[in-house]
């Protein structure tokens, strides 16, 4: 995607020179992923404010952006930081927002039992994710819910790649432990028999 990167760089250059319209194009290009990222990482009802603030801050920080680097993770880093500022405020008030995940809608190809089962599974996954320590949850969210690469995750969360790997594996292990009875009943059963 060299051409896209070059275009980002061009827009950044123009925006640095005060061309707000060019920056508007960058906003349009990345608003979807910024919005989704802020929400998935816990901005909750404040998502729109958080993202808007992040875009404004990014604009003012453009002077520090290295045009040889990809713009997307640089921007998302600012989005994540802004989101964290919200959490910190929330943390004092003990109401940490978590991303809500819609339930599976009834469908003609599924029986009501299947739908109920699937909803239950979604709830379990969501609750397990919510129960993870935040640093693990963030890595899982970035990698799987936001589909960021390992490099992007590292950059966005400001942690080394090795830490992304270790948090991911620790997080997955913790999730497995929490979800074990429903994820693999046959394994649980086998273990029970084996004891």
């Amino acid at each position, binding site marked *: 995607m060299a051409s896209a990167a070059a275009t980002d760089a061009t827009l950044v250059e123009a925006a640095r020179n005060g061309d707000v319209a060019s920056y*508007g194009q960058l906003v349009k290009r990345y608003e979807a992923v910024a919005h989704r990222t802020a929400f998935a990482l816990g901005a909750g009802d404040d998502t729109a404010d958080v993202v808007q603030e992040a875009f404004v801050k990014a604009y003012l920080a453009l002077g520090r952006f290295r045009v040889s680097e990809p713009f997307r993770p640089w921007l998302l880093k600012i989005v994540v930081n802004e989101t964290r500022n919200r959490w910190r405020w929330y943390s004092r008030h*003990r109401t940490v927002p978590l991303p809500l995940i819609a339930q599976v809608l009834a469908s003609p190809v599924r029986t009501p039992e299947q739908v109920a089962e699937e909803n239950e599974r979604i709830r379990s996954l969501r609750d397990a994710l919510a129960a993870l320590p935040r640093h693990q949850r963030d890595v899982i969210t970035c990698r799987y819910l936001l589909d960021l690469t390992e490099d992007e995750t590292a950059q966005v969360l400001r942690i080394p790649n090795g830490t992304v790997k270790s948090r991911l594996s620790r997080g*997955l292990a913790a999730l497995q432990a929490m979800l074990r009875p429903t994820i693999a009943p046959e394994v649980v059963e086998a273990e029970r028999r084996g004891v």
Partner: protein
Amino acid sequence: MVSDEPREVNRRARDLEAEFRELAQKLDVPARPDYATRVRERLESGSGATRPTLWRPPFGFTGPLGRLATATIVLVLAMVIVLSVPATRAAVADLFGFAGVNVRTAPSAAPSPRNTVDTALDLGEPVTIDEARQRVSFPVSLPVVPGLDAPDVYVTDEPGLESVSLVYGPTTGFPATAATHVGLLVGEYAGTATPYFDKLIEAGEPVTQVTVDGRWPGIYFTDPHQILVRGPDGLVHEDRPRLAAPTLVWVREGVTYRLEGALDMTNALAVAASMH
């Protein structure tokens, strides 16, 4: 007992990955506003002077709180965040995502610890032991162990965050640790962290539950772990990770103690029991 074959573990990890990737499709993201227009209006509204609104703290927090947010970070066990909140169990669970002695094996490329304990650890203000006793609301205890010289003492008495740190230079029996470069580091924090311990243990962290002096609940862990930092703004900062040596944390009569040094569990417990 339970013994997972690595292959089975990997398979389940992959299944779980796939499930979470699917979950991404079900993320109930709220409607997206027209950011381009909003941002453009913001940028153009102040004829270029957008700065005044830039650092607006969330929800219009201004004044001392806003300024504190940029104040010097004080390193402290993040469990203090739990201590400082009259926490119900649910609240602890909420906070856990932010707080904690994160007991995890550090990656080899982890940031190297700073060299001197006072600057590296930001333990607070250097004081005499008598001054420390005057400045905090809890009784300050010292380990009574042969071979320890008098400690350097640091105090933090920010609102809602009181701690005393004792720093002992390396001696025989208390060699310098790679993490702290000192022989023994003792932290004392106002507050009780018992629910937090429970959570840590529930989370399956590699810690050993112990009892100090036959009475006080605690945990001991040897894996290098990161310590989150908390600023005087009451916020938790994760951006200064430090590797820590084997650590014993316990709670005694409303005070949480943290002992860090090159000590095995038996010796750590002996030092802890000697605290008077």
